[in-house]
């Protein structure tokens, strides 16, 4: 399993760090988790065409996690995807997909016209709204969505991917959340977001304390470690 951090940034524009997006390549599948600013550029830099993405999984619908969807969707189609873009995400995902089609109706119509029409199926979006569950299983790789605590952004999900006896867990945006700890148990790699819009600096230290209190042990003794939001805003 190979994981590429395509974008590690926040909503603040940063030329070195683009919006949230993580590519997981497992058993010949290319799964994308979140779709932030600049995702198609980063995919290209990583040597992956947007048309190759087998599935997009959204942690939540904050704009910095989804603003790259039109580019992924339409560039992937333009570059040769001939089947629908599959998207899994929280409630609201289907509506967003439907409205994207409306927003880009002109471009879609023009590109489906003669003399060199793109395939109609390739511009479709197959959007599924999810609950906490195993939501993807191709026989080799499984992806499970689990609920995390992103405050008023509810529902918000993290994901666990298991393939060939190995696993990676992606936290999504969350403060301390026991559910994340439970799902991260036994994972080979835990990828955790570290930013929140908090005024208090180093809020994560409090979150770490929270982890320790909940487990009743020091963090180092917990079976799974979860980093909660770290705010460096001062």
């Amino acid at each position, binding site marked *: 399993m190979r994981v590429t951090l395509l974008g*590690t940034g926040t909503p603040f524009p940063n030329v070195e760090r683009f919006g949230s997006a993580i590519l997981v390549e497992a058993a010949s599948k290319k799964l994308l988790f979140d779709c932030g600013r600049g995702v198609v550029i980063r995919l290209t830099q990583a040597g992956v065409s947007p048309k190759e993405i087998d599935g997009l999984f959204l942690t939540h619908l904050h704009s910095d996690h989804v603003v790259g969807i039109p580019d992924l969707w339409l560039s992937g189609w333009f570059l040769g995807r001939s089947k629908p873009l599959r998207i899994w995400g929280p409630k609201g995902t289907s509506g967003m997909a439907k409205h994207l089609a409306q927003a880009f109706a002109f471009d879609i119509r023009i590109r489906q016209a003669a003399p060199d029409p793109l395939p109609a199926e390739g511009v479709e979006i197959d959007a599924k709204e999810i609950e906490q569950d195993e939501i993807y299983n191709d026989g080799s790789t499984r992806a499970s969505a689990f609920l995390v605590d992103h405050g008023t952004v509810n529902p918000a999900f993290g994901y666990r991917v298991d393939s060939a006896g190995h696993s990676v867990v992606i936290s999504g945006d969350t403060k301390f959340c026991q559910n994340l700890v439970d799902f991260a148990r036994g994972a*080979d*790699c835990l990828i955790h*977001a570290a930013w929140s819009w908090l005024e208090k600096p180093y809020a994560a230290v409090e979150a770490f304390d929270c982890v320790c209190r909940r487990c009743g042990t020091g963090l180092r003794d917990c*079976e799974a470690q979860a980093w909660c939001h*770290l705010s*460096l805003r001062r």
Partner: protein
Amino acid sequence: MKPKLGVIYHYEDEEGLGEAVRKKYNGPFVIARDLMAINIGRTVTWEREPAAAHAPKENTIER
């Protein structure tokens, strides 16, 4: 079972971030940067240097 590697992303500024985590967590972790790739198998290795590494320099962590 602890993760072989923790990875921090979605952060605004790495200054002080690693130290803040290290105060409370003694496992291996890195602060990721864009296009850093992690290979997960019996061992966990990374390609392209992270913004900061708090993990063995040889880039290989075995459980």
